[in-house]
Structure formats: structure tokens, C-alpha cells
């Protein structure tokens, strides 16, 4: 028995697209925590749910799933979280959310959860959509047939939530209200034998001496285990029994899986007439009418390109004002602190390492927030499933998930939010593969580097009298990076990240207005996670880089430049004095950089005789705050590069591309790898 002080746990389960997240947000308020399930990178949320009698209980989100059956460790989370298999704590009750408009399919999961013997309450969500779809549900009859409390709710409007809380409260007080025993039993004696044989092999740690739970886990094993699965914790003995029963059944011309699934569905179909009335819709639904355009061969693809162009443009330049604001803010703080602290090492550390580091973390926020805003709207409205569908053929060819498209596209703007966005894919393999190739896409920070290198190596001439060489090279670089990323994905997907082939079985949810509080909350959570988790690493590296580039400090060099500065006082013309002071600063920064540890290690990486070193030299020779004048006649790529704030480009360029052609382009004592 649970200790009296223990906080009760309620697992929140349901099919994908049932409004589970919105319900979670509604029930828990604002203090939800995002974390990973132990052992796998499957995210889940936990939040406190206040109930009148039971007080505060912990609501734990379970990944959306159509069934408890699993093939991969990620899918296994559902059964672990619901049945409470190690390492996940057993819940005291399970709240299953079902979509009112797709009741029969959703009830499949409900039956499975009831079979595990845990107290269950069912929330029929989107109840306000029933009339629109020509359906009506008899909730009391459904509750009687299922043997568990059933509450009709609308997570969007908040309807029925008080009743749901009350039902959950009563259930936690009296679990027997929600534990009716399995609704369905094997009809054939052969299947009964199969289930019993497998149940005998279920490990004690799983079944906890509960007969019903043991049978439920046996059914789970019969549907889930096979020679290709990637499940954890199944003993060889259990696998052996399952394989033996399957072979035996095949010899008798039976298919165990089909019998089990058919058994559950025939229970649902047999009773459906009692609780569900369906009237055929008189006119096509809004979703149908919208899809007629958005999935139209020509119109749909144009709409898709337009939507993607919008996302890309917003990331590429729409975030600029906010980024500029953040940079000026940090620049101002930096200037203020620089004046405030006495000149010296502490001053340099605080300004060039700490403030610079925090600034270079915060500067990513506008793009991250924008990207997740777009993703949230696309997911919530139902368009993301259509994007995955439209891009499936292309992405499948290189072994990527259809959902990888939006993160990959975002990679052209900036790799950091793009990699964060891979979180929207469920399978680890898909995420890893996408993360590996995103940095190969040409991000906007590389644009000025390409500009410099191309300008340094190729004169502004034309092929055939009208095709500008420099422009073509720039387009070529983009194509090259895209092809490289796709080829790498194809190779990695067939070697390092080889996984079982997953059929595309995508549900196309009806279009809905996004639930703004949920979308904004997701944007906020992602931004916060980036600040707290990635931010620390970036800050640490900034400080480390600062140290590498600042030490050892040669006192002779410092003294020489100090003397030069002192001599400046004699200069009468203020304009000349200022320009001379700037020159001294650049020269000093360059001198210190050359003698630093960082420069020494960089030299070790690339010997001065290599062709790359000469590129670096010629590029830094022409490096200036804006692209060199030679480039001005070039087409779009060049004009984009020069139109963008050069200071932002250099800042991100230095950060993302490492010690390359940007060299000593910095104009102040701040290190070149991140100076505004």
C-alpha cells in the first residue's frame, strides 16, 4: 500500500490529436515541468492537479498513442507509464482522453487500459464537435458498458472539467469504481491457451501477483514482441514462449494478433449502436473543403511552398529587429560595465566572457520563439500532418521522417532552433538523423563567410556574358550543402541509424483553430529549456574561448599599446584621434590574439603552408564590416548579404563557423568570435 504522505499519481493517456495537451494545461495550470522519461529521450510533462477531496495529485502526461503495443523503446513508454513498469512509478489512476468524433477507434486504447486492472476514468473530449459531425453519444450508457466513469468534456472551452475533477476525485477515493475487469475475453479456447502460456512467463516484477495485470501484459507481449522489436526488459524466456505460441498458431492457420485485435474491436462494434448514433453528414465538412485546396495537386503544393516561404522568411529576417534590440541591449550593458569596472582582467572577463556569453545565448531566443510559434500553430491547426504527408516521398527517399522537413528548412536560417525543433519527432532515430544533417545546411551565418571567400578567390566576371560567376557560386554552395545533407542522411540512415522500416500511417486530424494558450505555453517552455539547458553550455564555451584567446598575456605588448594610447593625447583633431584610437585597439587585439593559446592551437590545426591558410589570409585582408565593394554587382545572394546587418552576421558567423575566414575582422578589443 502507498504511504499516506505519498502524492498520488494520475497518468494522462490518449490517442494523438485528442486535445490531451490542452486538457493537461487546463487541469494543471501553469506549474508544469517538462522532463524526460528515465532511460529514453521521450519528453513528458508533469503538473499538479488540485482535487476537492484528494488535494494535490500529480498529473503525468503519457505520449499520445493509438494502442499500448510497442515496437521501440519509445513506444514502450506508454505501457510502462500506464501499467507502472520499472523504471516508471505506478499511477494510482489513469485518465484516458478520447476524441468524441472518433469514438470507436479511441475506445480500443480504453479497453487495453481497463485490461491492466488500473482504475480508469474516461474523458470524452471535443464534445462540442459532435453536433457538427452529425453524431451523438449516450455517455451514461457508455459508462455502464465500460464499467468506468465517463465524463463529456471540451478542453478548448473548459466545459465538463469540474465534473471530470470530481469523477477523478471519487475514483481515487474508491478505486473499485474504475476497475471493472476486462471487457473482452478470448473467444476461442486456443487463444485462451496462448494467453495463459505467455502469462506464465511474465516476470514477477511486472505482474505484481495480480492475475488480471498478468493477462494484460501477456496480451501486450503477444502483440508487441517479435524478432525485430527494440523493446527493453523482455526476458529471453518470455520471447521464447511468444515465438513458440505464434509458430504453433501459424501451423493451425490462426493469427494470434488478429484474434486479439479483432476481439477488442468486435466488442466495440457490437456495443456501438447502444451509445453512438451516427447520421451521415449532409454536406462536406470544413476540413474537407479546406483540404480540397490544401491537398490539391497544384494549389496545395503552391500553398505549401507559400507557408514554408513564410516560415523561412520570418526566421531569416523577421527576427532581425528583436535580435538587434537584444544586441544593442547587451552592447549597452557591456559598455556600461566596461566604464564601471577598473580596466584590467576582471573588466575584460565580465565584459568579454560573461556578458558576451549570456548575450550570445539570449540572441537566439527570437528565432527559437518564432520557429516554435510556427510549429505550434501548424501542429495545433492540423497542417503539420499534411506537411509530413506532402513531403513523405522526398524525405522517405533519403530515410528521413516527413516531419523532418520543417526543422531542415529552418536549418537554412539557423541551426540552433532547427535542432531544437527535432524534438517534435517521436522516434530517437529520426531525431538523431535529422540533428546530424541539419548543421550541413547553409545557415544564414555562413552567408558572409561564403561572400568573403568567393570575393577573395573569384573576380566579378560573367559566364556567357550575363551569368555572374560569384552569384552562381553562391547558388552552388546552397545546392551543395542541401545535396550533402540529403546524401549524408541517406548514408547515415542506412548505416549508423539503421532502424526498422516504419510504415507511414499518419492521421490527418480535422483542421482546428489553434488553442493559443497551449501554443504560447509551448513556445515559452521551449525557450526556457533552451536558456537553462543549452544556455549553460554556450556560456561555458564562451568563457573558455575567451580564456584561450586572452592568455598568456604579454606585458610588453600591453605596455607598448598603452604607450601609443598615451601619445594620442597630443592629437588635436578629434576625428583623427578617434580613428587612431580604434586602429590601436584593433592592432592590440590582433597582437594579443596572435600570441594567445587559441591562436597557437589553431596554427597547430592548420599549418601555414596549407591552401586554407592562404584563403584565410586573403579573406581577412578584405574583411570589413560590410562585404567588399567588388561583390556589389552580384545578384540576390550578395545583396541579401549586404542588406543584412553586418554586425549581426559577423557575430553569428564567428559563433557558428569557428576559426575561419573571419579572422581578425573584429574592430575592438573584444575577441573576434563573438563581438557586436
Amino acid at each position, binding site marked *: 500500500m502507498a504511504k499516506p504522505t505519498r502524492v498520488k499519481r494520475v497518468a494522462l493517456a490518449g490517442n494523438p490529436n485528442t486535445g490531451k495537451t490542452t486538457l493537461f494545461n487546463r487541469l494543471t495550470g501553469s506549474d508544469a515541468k517538462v522532463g524526460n522519461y528515465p532511460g529514453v529521450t521521450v519528453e513528458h510533462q508533469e503538473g499538479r492537479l488540485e482535487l476537492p477531496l484528494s488535494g494535490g495529485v500529480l498529473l503525468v502526461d503519457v505520449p499520445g498513442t493509438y494502442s499500448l503495443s510497442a515496437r521501440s523503446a519509445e513506444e514502450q513508454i506508454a505501457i510502462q507509464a500506464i501499467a507502472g513498469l520499472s523504471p516508471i512509478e505506478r499511477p494510482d489512476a489513469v485518465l484516458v482522453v478520447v476524441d468524441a468524433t472518433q469514438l470507436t*477507434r479511441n475506445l480500443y486504447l480504453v479497453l487495453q487500459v481497463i485490461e491492466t486492472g488500473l482504475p480508469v476514468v474516461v474523458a470524452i473530449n471535443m464534445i462540442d464537435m459532435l453536433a457538427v459531425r452529425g453524431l451523438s453519444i449516450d455517455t451514461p450508457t457508455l459508462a455502464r458498458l465500460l464499467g468506468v466513469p465517463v465524463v463529456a468534456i471540451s478542453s478548448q472551452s473548459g466545459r465538463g472539467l469540474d465534473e471530470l475533477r470530481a469523477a477523478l476525485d471519487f475514483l481515487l477515493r474508491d478505486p473499485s469504481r474504475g476497475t471493472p475487469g476486462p471487457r473482452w475475453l478470448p473467444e476461442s479456447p486456443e487463444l485462451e491457451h496462448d494467453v495463459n502460456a505467455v502469462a506464465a512467463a511474465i516476470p514477477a516484477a511486472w505482474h505484481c501477483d495480480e492475475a488480471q495485470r498478468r493477462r494484460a501484459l501477456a496480451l501486450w507481449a503477444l502483440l508487441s514482441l517479435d524478432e525485430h522489436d527494440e523493446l527493453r526488459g523482455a526476458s529471453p524466456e518470455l520471447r521464447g514462449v511468444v515465438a513458440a505460441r505464434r509458430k504453433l498458431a501459424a501451423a493451425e492457420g490462426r493469427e494470434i494478433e488478429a484474434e486479439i485485435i479483432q476481439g477488442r474491436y468486435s466488442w466495440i462494434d457490437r456495443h456501438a449502436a447502444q451509445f453512438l448514433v451516427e447520421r451521415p453528414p449532409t454536406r462536406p465538412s470544413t476540413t474537407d473543403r479546406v483540404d480540397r485546396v490544401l491537398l490539391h495537386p497544384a494549389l496545395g503544393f503552391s500553398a505549401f511552398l507559400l507557408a514554408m516561404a513564410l516560415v523561412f522568411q520570418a526566421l531569416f529576417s523577421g527576427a532581425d529587429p528583436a535580435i538587434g534590440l537584444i544586441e544593442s541591449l547587451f552592447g549597452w550593458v557591456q559598455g556600461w560595465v566596461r566604464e564601471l569596472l577598473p580596466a584590467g582582467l576582471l573588466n575584460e572577463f565580465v565584459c568579454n566572457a560573461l556578458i558576451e556569453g549570456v548575450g550570445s545565448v539570449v540572441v537566439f531566443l527570437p528565432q527559437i520563439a518564432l520557429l516554435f510559434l510556427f510549429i505550434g500553430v501548424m501542429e495545433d491547426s492540423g497542417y503539420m500532418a499534411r506537411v509530413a504527408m506532402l513531403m513523405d516521398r522526398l524525405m522517405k527517399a533519403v530515410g528521413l521522417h516527413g516531419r523532418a522537413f520543417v526543422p531542415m528548412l529552418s536549418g537554412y536560417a539557423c541551426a540552433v532552433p532547427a535542432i531544437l525543433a527535432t524534438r517534435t519527432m517521436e522516434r530517437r532515430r529520426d531525431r538523431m538523423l535529422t540533428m546530424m544533417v541539419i548543421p550541413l545546411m547553409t545557415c544564414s551565418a555562413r552567408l558572409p563567410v561564403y561572400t568573403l571567400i568567393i570575393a577573395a578567390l573569384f573576380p566579378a566576371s560573367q559566364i556567357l556574358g550575363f551569368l555572374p560567376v560569384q552569384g552562381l557560386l553562391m547558388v552552388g554552395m546552397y545546392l551543395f550543402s542541401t545535396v550533402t545533407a540529403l546524401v549524408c542522411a541517406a548514408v547515415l540512415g542506412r548505416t549508423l541509424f539503421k532502424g526498422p522500416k516504419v510504415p507511414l500511417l499518419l492521421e490527418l486530424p480535422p483542421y482546428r483553430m489553434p488553442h493559443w494558450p497551449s501554443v504560447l505555453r509551448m513556445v515559452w517552455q521551449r525557450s526556457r529549456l533552451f536558456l537553462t539547458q543549452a544556455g549553460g553550455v554556450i556560456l561555458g564555451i564562451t568563457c573558455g574561448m575567451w580564456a584561450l584567446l586572452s592568455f598568456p598575456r604579454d606585458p610588453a605588448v600591453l605596455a607598448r599599446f598603452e604607450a601609443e594610447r598615451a601619445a594620442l593625447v597630443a592629437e588635436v583633431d578629434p576625428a583623427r584621434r578617434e580613428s587612431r584610437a580604434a586602429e590601436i585597439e584593433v592592432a592590440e587585439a590582433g597582437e594579443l590574439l596572435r600570441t594567445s593559446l587559441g591562436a597557437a592551437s589553431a596554427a597547430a590545426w592548420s599549418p601555414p603552408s596549407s591552401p586554407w591558410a592562404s584563403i584565410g589570409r586573403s579573406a581577412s585582408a578584405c574583411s570589413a564590416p560590410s562585404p567588399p565593394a567588388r561583390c556589389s554587382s552580384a545578384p540576390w545572394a550578395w545583396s541579401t548579404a549586404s542588406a543584412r546587418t553586418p554586425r549581426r552576421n559577423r557575430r553569428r558567423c564567428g559563433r557558428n563557423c569557428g576559426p575561419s575566414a573571419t579572422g581578425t575582422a573584429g574592430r575592438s578589443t573584444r575577441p573576434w568570435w563573438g563581438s557586436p
Partner: protein
Amino acid sequence: MTNLDTLAPGSRARLVSLGGERAFRCRLMELGLLPGTILRVVRRVDVGGVLELEVRGCRLTVRRGEARLLLVEPN
């Protein structure tokens, strides 16, 4: 009897049998695509190489190659 991928958009059919790997069949069946289920081809999306189906009031997409594994009886 014919393969699902040959059906024209808008046509209805009864699912007769499912082919392909065990896991693929299980997944389809758990989504409600059991032998005997009535389904409707809503549209073909050639850009993505997929079919959109309506089964039990919900919309699913399957790849054309995977739809070929399903035998149906048009009605």
C-alpha cells in the same frame, strides 16, 4: 477483388485481407483497419505518393506501396 492502391478517389470498399510484415499488419488493425471494415479512398496525393483513406470516421494516409498490400472488395 483488387489492391487498394488501384481504387479511384471517392470509391468505397470492404477490406478483405492485409499483407506485409507482422508489425505493419498489427498497426493497421489496431487503427481499426480489420478485415471486413468499410473504407473510402478520399483522395490520392501524388506529390507525397500517398492515399488518404477514411476509416471509422477518421482520416489516415498510407503510402501507395503499402496500400498495394491491402486487398479490398469494391462496393
